């Protein structure tokens, strides 16, 4: 099945998350405005949008923390929030930053959350807690009080909580917030490993490059609306590509590109860029050579996710209030 504008590839596999016209109004403001989210099984779904675009409210509705004003939610085949007691145990969540008891150690905090789970097995708890701490690299700090943790360690503890029992879906809201580049890379690797084990991951972020690097699917939120969702590669492909020619005869190169039908031709110092449009890439270099333009370098630039975002919203990324 090929993508339509509204849905990612179904491929026959049922979606882990599916919402219909999901809406949340707070007093005067519409935080989430009729979105049809669809997270396919096995996907790493990047939920993108500037701060304040409705990502967290959507995630809170998916997890049954906030009741929708209207619309429907299917989570792992059960309606939410009605099915919360059955489905949420299969969902590991990190919601809007880590939050734990400051005077308890990391291990004691996890032990407490595990005790709150009516179906968890007390006998296996110590082993499961240690495994989760180990997985996020927190074992050396397991007995330290939470208040002594750095922001990065807190973030890891919240991820460890999401890994206490095997999950079918992980919902990670801004998981790399406050992490250094090393920590960010580790989270990315962890998400990759979990996805490889078959866990579906819904990861929200306002960092476009991060989503670009770890996601298979992406949904773009802006001012409460889901502007676009689909496979990441298809989203990239749908955006017009840019070519760049390095040459010392900039003006001649530019006129050749214009003749070929490329648009937005921009001569620069020692290079020309232009939007490829419908022109076949392989025709460009021979034309340049025929026109005796020395080609010192030629590249087709993959549009960044930011370019995609700007093309969708007509605005930069960090403007939504």
């Amino acid at each position, binding site marked *: 099945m090929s993508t339509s504008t509204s849905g990612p590839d179904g491929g026959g596999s049922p979606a882990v998350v599916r919402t219909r016209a999901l809406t949340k109004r707070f007093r005067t403001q519409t935080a989430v405005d009729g979105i049809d989210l669809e997270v396919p099984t096995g996907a790493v779904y990047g939920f993108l949008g500037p701060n304040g675009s409705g990502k967290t409210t959507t995630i809170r509705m998916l997890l049954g923390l906030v009741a929708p004003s209207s619309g429907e939610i299917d989570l792992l085949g059960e309606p939410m929030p009605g099915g919360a007691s059955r489905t949420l145990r299969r969902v590991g969540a990190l*919601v809007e930053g880590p939050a734990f008891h400051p005077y308890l150690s990391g291990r004691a905090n996890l032990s407490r959350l595990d005790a709150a789970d009516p179906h968890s097995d007390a006998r296996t708890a110590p082993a499961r807690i240690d495994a989760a701490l180990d997985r996020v690299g927190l074992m050396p700090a397991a007995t330290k009080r939470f208040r002594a943790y750095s922001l990065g360690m807190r973030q890891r503890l*919240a991820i460890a909580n999401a890994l206490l029992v095997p999950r079918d879906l992980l919902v990670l809201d801004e998981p790399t917030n406050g992490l250094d580049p090393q920590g960010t890379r580790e989270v990315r690797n962890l998400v990759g490993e979990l996805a490889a084990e078959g866990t579906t991951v819904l990861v929200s972020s306002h960092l476009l490059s991060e989503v670009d690097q770890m996601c298979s699917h992406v949904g773009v939120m802006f001012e409460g609306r889901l502007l676009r969702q689909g496979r990441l590669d298809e989203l990239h492909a749908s955006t017009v590509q840019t070519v760049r020619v390095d040459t010392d005869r900039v003006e001649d190169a530019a006129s050749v590109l214009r003749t070929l039908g490329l648009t937005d031709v921009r001569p620069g110092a020692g290079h020309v860029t232009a939007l490829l449009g419908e022109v076949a890439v392989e025709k460009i270099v021979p034309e340049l050579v025929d026109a005796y333009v020395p080609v010192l370098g030629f590249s087709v630039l993959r549009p960044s996710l930011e370019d995609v975002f700007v093309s969708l919203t007509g605005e930069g990324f960090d403007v939504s209030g």
Partner: protein
Amino acid sequence: MSAAEADVVVAGRQQRPEQAHRTRTALPGRFLRSELTIVFGRRRNLVLLGVLAAIPVLLAIALKVSSGPDDGRGGGPGFFEAITSNGLFVAFAALAAELPLFLPLAVAAASGDAIAGEANLGTLRYLLTIPAGRTRLLLTKYVAVVVFGLVATALVALAGVVAGLALFGGGDVILLSGTTTSLVDGVGRLALSVLYLSACFAALAAIGMFVSTLTEQPIAAIVATIGVNVLMFILDAIPQIAWLHPWLLVDWWSAFGDLLRDPIGTDAIGRGLLTALAYAVVFLTLAWARFSNKDITS
């Protein structure tokens, strides 16, 4: 407790599987233990317990130092006169002295913090996505707070007994009705007083739980709960509105003095327990209605 729990679960299983599941959800042993660890591990609560236990000791010392028969002042159903004759009465006098403020303060501190404290830390959203279940969370926290109130009251009584017997000695107890009974019987009546007052405080805890579901600021919830308690005491002291008094929770608290009569006066105690039950049911229902539909945005 755990044996009874096991019995209920077994009985439930014999009936129907989903019955057993529901029973287990209603009796969350491990979760409750974990909650009790949190409540009794909190420094604020430990300090409060320390203060509660120190008051009977101070009371006993003050009476011992001033010695001589006292002048008949002091709150409660007249325990202070009896103290010098039997140390056991230090416990009753301490309960009476801590009844208007200190014991309610401890109950308010634990109950007001119950939901609002977790909301304030942000841990509420993690508990609910576990999912701990909203009703289950509310009831578990309520039981933990009631246990805290029971422990606080028992601690006051215990500290009173230890300090009183050490400074004034024990022996037979002369009850308020004039009859004499054994020390063991007196201790038994003290235990009944602790249970009765704990039941009264369980009703106050229900008010605290309800207030706690209204805010994300635990201190605000604690202050409001104490405010309600003080307001009831003030209303109870205004004779012009005597018609209102029987409906006030606190009006029945000092009835525990009836446990020191022979035979035990059960009228006021019974009304007190009924009033406490009514308050507990009403405010727990309100708390549940509020909490089960609340948007958790903290």
